[in-house]
């Protein structure tokens, strides 16, 4: 019974000969980025050791003074990066370059705001209220994402074009109309932006004394569900087949009876819905309203996260923790007289090294086969 359960939950073990290369690539990219970052700091005459001590000491990734606070903040932003990272990765698995997470994030945020303060819902118990909010967030974000899929299927519009345009449409629709128009807070209250969401719509805190809320638990579950969807279901099987055959016009899965068009729309719905969760988290867990000007950027950070995480759900979760940690520790580096935007440089260089991953893989493969030269000879008579 235990074994059966294990198989259903985790699936069978597949031995990949050089599986560790996939794990090492992002780690090496990050280490290289840290080295290059250190060189930059050194060149400006400051101490990289002090800077990194401050950065990681307050990032929440490593134990240290006030760890509880940093840890909570790190996980708080992690959950949002996971949302937008998974959004990009799901679509990437199906061969789509979906960069609409930014817009979906905002749509998720405004949807959560509305259902958070709107009257009929405001007096319900927290659990029911949040459930309703999240259902609408998923539907609205999903629809916003699926527009891109629909346009691609019906009109042949490339998803990069449509998602970029949808991002801007979302920004202007929300910030230039909803927030200052229909959803504006009553002037007498003196609040700019939308009204605050009711107390029942705020995400329950799970770590006392901090802001850390259930969003991280939700994202752990979602990460697992996405992994399950990708690798354990026929849906995931089909979309992976689509992504793998992108250069061949997806003909192999099409010939196998896969309804490419339908899957494409479903994938963009899913990508939009997951990204929208992130928007809901920032509203329901941090801001509690939709401000007149929204910081944003989480959608595009999602691409960074997905790249570092190699489009794998677990990898994205870990990459999100890393980026979340960098952002949390960013303020502290100012103590070493380094601007707080410095961690963004590290992110950027990491992505640059990820872009060079074929080279890193080549080195690793060479190292691996050099070590195993004798092994090849023994194996000599292997079959084709």
């Amino acid at each position, binding site marked *: 019974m235990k074994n059966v359960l294990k198989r259903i939950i985790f699936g069978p073990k597949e031995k990949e000969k050089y599986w560790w290369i996939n794990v090492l690539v992002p780690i090496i990219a990050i280490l290289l980025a840290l080295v290059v970052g250190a060189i930059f700091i050194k060149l400006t005459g400051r101490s990289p050791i002090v800077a990194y001590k401050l950065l990681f000491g307050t990032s929440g990734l490593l134990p240290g003074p006030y760890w509880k606070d940093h840890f909570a903040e790190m996980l708080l932003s992690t959950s949002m990066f996971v949302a937008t990272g998974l959004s990009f990765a799901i679509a990437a698995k199906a061969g789509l370059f979906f960069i609409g997470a930014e817009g979906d994030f905002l749509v998720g945020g405004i949807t959560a705001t509305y259902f958070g303060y709107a009257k009929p819902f405001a007096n319900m118990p927290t659990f029911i209220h949040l459930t309703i909010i999240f259902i609408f967030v998923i539907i609205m974000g999903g629809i916003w994402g699926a527009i891109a899929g629909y346009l691609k299927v019906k009109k042949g519009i490339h998803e990069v074009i449509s998602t970029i345009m949808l991002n801007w449409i979302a920004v202007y629709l929300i910030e230039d109309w909803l927030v200052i128009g229909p959803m504006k807070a009553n002037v007498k209250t003196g609040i700019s932006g939308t009204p605050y969401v009711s107390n029942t719509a705020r995400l329950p805190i799970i770590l006392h004394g901090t802001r850390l809320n259930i969003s991280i638990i939700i994202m752990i579950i979602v990460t697992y569900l996405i992994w399950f969807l990708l690798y354990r279901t026929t849906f995931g099987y089909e979309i992976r087949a689509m992504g793998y055959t992108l250069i061949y016009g997806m003909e192999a899965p099409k010939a196998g009876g896969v309804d490419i068009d339908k899957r494409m729309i479903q994938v963009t719905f899913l990508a939009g819905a997951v990204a929208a969760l992130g928007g809901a988290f920032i509203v329901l867990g941090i801001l509690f309203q939709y401000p007149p000007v929204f910081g944003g950027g989480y959608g595009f950070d999602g691409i960074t996260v997905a790249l570092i995480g190699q489009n794998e759900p677990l990898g994205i979760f870990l990459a999100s923790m890393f980026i979340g940690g960098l952002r949390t520790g960013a303020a502290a580096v100012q103590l070493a007289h380094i601007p707080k935007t410095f961690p963004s440089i590290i992110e950027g260089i990491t992505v640059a090294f990820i872009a060079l991953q074929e080279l890193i893989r080549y080195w690793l493969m060479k190292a691996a086969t050099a070590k195993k030269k004798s092994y090849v000879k023994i194996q000599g008579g292997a079959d*084709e």
Partner: protein
Amino acid sequence: MKALEVKNIVKQFPNVLANDHISLSIEKGEIFAVVGENGAGKSTLMKIIYGLYTPTSGEIYVFGKKVKIETPEDAIRLKIGMVHQEFMLIPRFTVTENIVLGDEPHRGMIFDYKRAVKEVRELSERFGLKVDPTDKVANIPVGIQQRVEILKILRRGAEILIFDEPTAVLTPEETEDLFKALRRLKAEGKTIIFISHKLKEVMTIADRIAVLRRGKLQGVVEKEKTNEVELARMMVGRNVVLEIPHVEAKIGKTVLSVRDLTVKNKRGIIGLKGVSFDVHSGEIVGIAGVEGNGQAELVNALIGFTRPVKGKIELDGKEIKLLTPYNLRTKGMVYIPEDRKRRGIVLPFRVRENIIMGQHTLYPFSKNGILNDSEINKFATKKLEEFDIRPRNIHVRGGNLSGGNQQKLILAREMSIEHKFLLASQPTRGLDIGAMEFVYKKLVEEKKKGIGVLLISLELSEIMGLSDRILVLYNGEIVGETTPDKTNEEELGLMMLGLKRQERVLQ
């Protein structure tokens, strides 16, 4: 004098040992053939010599000197040239422009086209490779395009010329011409390495023949001291009879009925014009024709890739109104594609994943949309055994299988789906004898089981050997219907070229 010598070449790919300690030595001025089944390691070996792959271990000597060839540029510098199976020509350029590209004669900054033309003309005369230097490559036949490729590498001073299955794209006449050119090059003292799996050609042209099997060198033989039968035995490790056993057709009811089917091709031009025919259970209907006469359009319509302009398709007596791949598949059609890499398998997918494509939504492979891995693995293991797919490892990626094994994988998959009609579109394209024989055997088995088979093939021998009825496709129309015992290859050839037409009456 030895032109080229390789010693103990080993090339290890993930999961595949493509070359296993291969040592060859090739004399200057000989035509040296390398034969072997698909996946035997011929192309890998040549790519190593040409610098496209680096060997895992081993040494290469060119004209007695030990060399390291890491890029094609190194190879060219060592006077090694390669004519690839797919030509690397620019269609909009003229013959001359293509030949001099990358090393153009110039006067100052300006490209000296006149001198280039003169150079090409001289080169072409010297080696007896006739081309018109001012023709656009897009307008000349494949055989001439190949000559342009050869001239291109000769101009770079190639002494050792590698030909990777050069006859695969040629007509018999063009092949004759190529052989004449090769003999001439030999007389000029060039060394020629000729890769092929067509034994007849090898016996005509080669001086010595090396046989590879599964990455290992089986031996080098002189042409005079061998024959096709022996070579075939060395290649596949047993006697191969390419005789197709004749099985009497037990014709049953109609499984596929096509009426007045008109289909546009990719460029929006009508490529198939009002074609009507039937396929009955228990028979193989062959469609003969030169490539590009409507086969692709017919296939695309039958598998639901392109919507026909008009006409109807009936499967098992029921008209299929909505022609989508899914609908056709669930109504009893299976399909062996002409391009396995493109349409047959998902290259990065493992064998176990590839083998359920098309039936992955069915029980027991999945239930409520969740895959059942142990059932999939059980099924895959069984099919690997049943269809002799090597290696016997369900976790190997589809792209790491050899061509023949990829095709077997497709056969295993398609034939295990419940079906009444099998569409086999060039099922032996690019396969070696062993794999071809396997495909033939399986098609005949299908026929015996009472499946209706539509076989589209460019190989006349295949059509003649397997079909119970033959339809000839020319210029998008069926120009004749006959049976193998009422016709011969010559007559079919005439019909295929549109020189002979037969009136046919559909019952």
